[in-house]
């Protein structure tokens, strides 16, 4: 799993490249939370998670997203999801994630 981010553009985004499962969950969690300070410094209030290259995600990934929502929402940071692949989209739909992290269109 590789995570890249561009927080300087008008629409700050974080791109995920690889598989999000139990094995990569801790890395994803830590990498994402390590950016919190930077969001505050740049007064960012909305971030896009770009899932175009996220080739796999199971319910462990849903747990990671729920955790980020709880933690980041308390800092008034909104997350949107962009371009999930169909099978990732299915997991996101079943678990109701789009109610708290809307699809970016």
């Amino acid at each position, binding site marked *: 799993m590789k995570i890249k981010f561009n927080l300087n553009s008008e629409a700050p985004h974080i791109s995920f490249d690889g*598989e999000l*499962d*139990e*094995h990569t969950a801790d890395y994803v*969690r830590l990498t994402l939370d390590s950016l919190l300070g930077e969001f505050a410094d740049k007064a960012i209030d909305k971030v896009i998670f770009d899932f175009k290259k996220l080739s*796999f995600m*199971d*319910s*462990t990934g*849903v*747990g*990671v997203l*729920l*955790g980020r929502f709880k933690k980041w929402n308390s800092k008034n940071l909104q997350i949107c999801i962009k371009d999930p692949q*169909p*099978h990732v989209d*299915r*997991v996101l739909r*079943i*678990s109701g994630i789009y109610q708290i992290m809307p699809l970016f269109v």
Partner: protein
Amino acid sequence: MKFDNQMTLVVDAKTKNESFIRSTIAAFCVEANPTLSEINDVKTAVSEAITNSIVHGYDGTDGKITIAVGLCNREVFITIIDQGKGIEDIQKARKPFFTTKPEQERSGMGFTVMESFMDNLIVKPNDSGGLIVHMKKKFGD
């Protein structure tokens, strides 16, 4: 049951094996000519069962997971067995959002995903301790 083709994997209950197990089962199913969507359903369901064995069943301790896969008339039958601590109330555990580890950011959606992505799911205690998960899916439905 007589299968057209069969395989059994026995692997250490380590998270680094998850991707390998998913890919191996997907590759084994190719001869049944599944669609990309069907094969992704199988990979996701298998991943849920394996994660459950590692995180809940063995809970950080060493152990083995046995994965048996059979193909018959474009239908895949998968059995995943561990010798972990098992699940006390299986019916309760199968409900959406149920988790024994809320402090670990668990979604509690594992069994719901398995049920939604496969045609049939049976979860039962392993007589020698641990859990047995049976699931099947017909390709080309």
